[in-house]
């Protein structure tokens, strides 16, 4: 009797907790939200023909609705309490209860899977490519060495994830450091991962350049600029003015001037880019045009309103210079991510810097947290369609 009372009390508590946690499956609002997604899904199935945007939405809804349907089918299998009470046979009732507990277990797993799908749905921004920048920050040569290590870490991370990337610009220093680098990552998945890496990264260690063994703190920053599909820069050859140092006079076999430095001016925008980092003039010209293209894309991105918002969002870490997102402490062989409340510290720093599973795991956690937050925000502002219509009236 006492045990039965206790169980009733427990169930009541769980239900109460569930209705306050917005992401619990038993939350009423989440339930209505799911139902509206289901209805949207079936409406789209009828109407989506020929519209690629609607198709995209449909394919994103598919896994959520699928697991919702599975959940409902399972729920039907559970014997209700009323039937359970009506059952007279003790053995039969025990069997039913056992069956119910198995189903309850399955249901819980299905709920988790559904939540996972639902969370993936909350990534509302889709970009086919992004521009990824590494810049050395405060700390001179040591900061540049650290920037190079970050650069290596991220390029091997891109390879780990199987993303294609190309380098637009990279300026190195003579002792193996990096002033800045500018890459384009061509993968629609990349933005939803790399957006969490934008911000200030801090390193604490005894630098190779330090003679008296003191620990220094230096920084490097990462910028991630999403590149929407509609941003495309075509540079027409007639719009370019290419300048070299060669004075007028005969060319070709008549002279032997090396003449490798190139300056390219984009006449419509007035942007000018120089390159003299290679011995071959043609290589320098190709490099300069690539840099020019990157600049034009950046300019265009900054001018479109939508991406302005996205850029700012992605770089919140950059708005406040003191706001570091992660510390790499070599002395204690640890990495601490300051945005993760619990367990944000990882050990085995050299393994982390390889840009493989460890980095990937950390980003995944950040991503999950972010998705949770967006879903909670969404549910808070979301109103069921019927209610919305009522409000309008």
């Amino acid at each position: 009797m006492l045990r039965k009372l206790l169980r009733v009390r427990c169930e009541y508590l769980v239900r109460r907790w569930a209705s306050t946690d917005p992401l619990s499956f038993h939350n009423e609002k989440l339930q209505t939200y799911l139902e509206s997604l289901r209805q949207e899904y079936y409406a789209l199935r009828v109407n989506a023909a020929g519209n690629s945007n609607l198709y995209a939405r449909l394919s994103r809804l598919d896994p959520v609705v699928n697991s919702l349907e599975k959940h409902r089918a399972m729920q039907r299998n559970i014997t209700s309490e009323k039937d359970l009470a009506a059952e007279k046979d003790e053995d039969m009732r025990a069997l039913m209860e056992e069956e119910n507990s198995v189903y309850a277990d399955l249901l819980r797993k299905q709920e988790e899977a559904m939540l996972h799908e639902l969370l993936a749905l909350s990534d509302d921004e889709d970009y086919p490519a992004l521009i990824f920048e590494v810049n050395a920050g405060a700390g001179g040569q040591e900061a540049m060495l650290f920037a190079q290590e970050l650069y290596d870490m991220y390029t091997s991370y891109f390879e780990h994830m199987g993303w294609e990337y190309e380098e637009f610009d990279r300026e190195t220093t003579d002792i193996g450091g990096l002033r800045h680098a500018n890459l384009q990552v061509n993968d629609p998945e990349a933005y939803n991962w790399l957006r969490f890496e934008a911000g200030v990264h801090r390193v604490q260690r005894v630098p190779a350049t330090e003679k008296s063994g003191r620990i220094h703190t230096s920084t490097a920053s990462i910028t991630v600029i999403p590149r929407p599909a509609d941003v495309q820069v075509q540079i027409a050859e007639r719009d370019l003015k290419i300048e070299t140092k060669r004075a007028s006079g005969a060319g070709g076999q008549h002279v032997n001037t090396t003449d490798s430095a190139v300056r390219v001016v984009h006449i419509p925008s007035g942007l000018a880019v120089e390159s003299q980092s290679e011995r071959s003039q043609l290589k320098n010209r190709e490099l300069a045009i690539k840099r020019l293209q990157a600049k034009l894309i950046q300019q265009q991105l900054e001018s479109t309103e939508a991406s302005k918002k996205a850029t700012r969002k992605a770089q919140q870490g950059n708005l406040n210079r003191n706001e570091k997102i992660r510390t790499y402490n070599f002395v204690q062989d640890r990495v601490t991510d300051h945005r993760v409340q619990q367990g944000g510290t990882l050990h085995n720093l050299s393994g982390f810097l390889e840009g493989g599973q460890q980095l990937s795991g950390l980003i995944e956690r950040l991503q999950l947290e972010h998705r949770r937050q967006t879903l909670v925000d969404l549910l808070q502002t979301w109103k069921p369609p019927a209610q919305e219509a009522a409000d309008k009236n």
Partner: protein
Amino acid sequence: MFKYLTQPLRRTAQIAKRSFCNSKLSGSSAKITAAKTATPTVSPLIEVRDALNGWEDKLKEAGVNDIDFNLKCIVSHVLQRKFNTVPDDFAQLKFNSEQLVDFERFLEARCARMPLQHIIGEWDFMDITLKTAPTVFIPRPETEEFVRLVIENYRKVEHVNMLEVGCGSGAMSLSMLHALPQVDATAIERSKAATKLVWENAKMLGLQERFKVHNHTMETDNYLPEELKDKQYDLIISNPPYVKTEEFQFLHPEVVVYENLNALDGGSDGLRVARLVFELACRHLRPGGKLWLELGNEHPPLVKTIMNLQYQGRLNFVNSYEDQYKRERFVQLEKV
């Protein structure tokens, strides 16, 4: 006439060459004596910035252009580092005493107007790095533009059987092979030393499988070596000597003193060798095959006239193109 003009220059060049070789010897003998005394003295390091002191003025006095670039090339060569990893301001770079000796020897040679590419022994052409030697003509930046143009025209062609006439260091053929996997190239070259060098370059770049070079001098009625007598090509490229004999007096000392004049002298109108190439193309291009030539400033209209007057029914003038300095210099011809 021409000889008198260049004689004094040649003399200074000889002195420079001699000191270039001597110091090479003295450098190594110094090493031997150091080894004999066997005192492990750590040679003092010299800041590159300090070592540069005064050389800028000396180079300027000698009439060298683009001094910063020259210095950077030589510094990176002495330090045996890739050009694009050396900072423009040479911050924190140091020479040891041997490197300092080399550095000053190279700059001395540069002041005597020895071409930079001969001093450092290699040069970049498009995406490849080539060994250079005094016997071989140094590829020019315009030739990069020429090759780029040819590559763009053949990017989508399935298979190209190409011949180059007078390949020098191999810059054009090897760049084509490097950029386009569907190209097979054969080259002829009159200089034995260049033939050897271009083969070395091909092996260094791993392109020897698709490349052949023959040591052969093109003459009237003896255009190709015996083993290629019956060959037909889809494409012939050439950068033949096109400097008019009368223009030799205006050339830079780097060119007239140090470069192989065989690779420059194009006769009285600059087209002596080009005319031989026209004849060769008539015999060894397949119908519809193309001949691309890099020539001098005034040549394309002249070539057009020659085609119309002398090659009707054999070669057609297709088009002419400008180099990156907006000079009309490149021509495309077609076998009828």
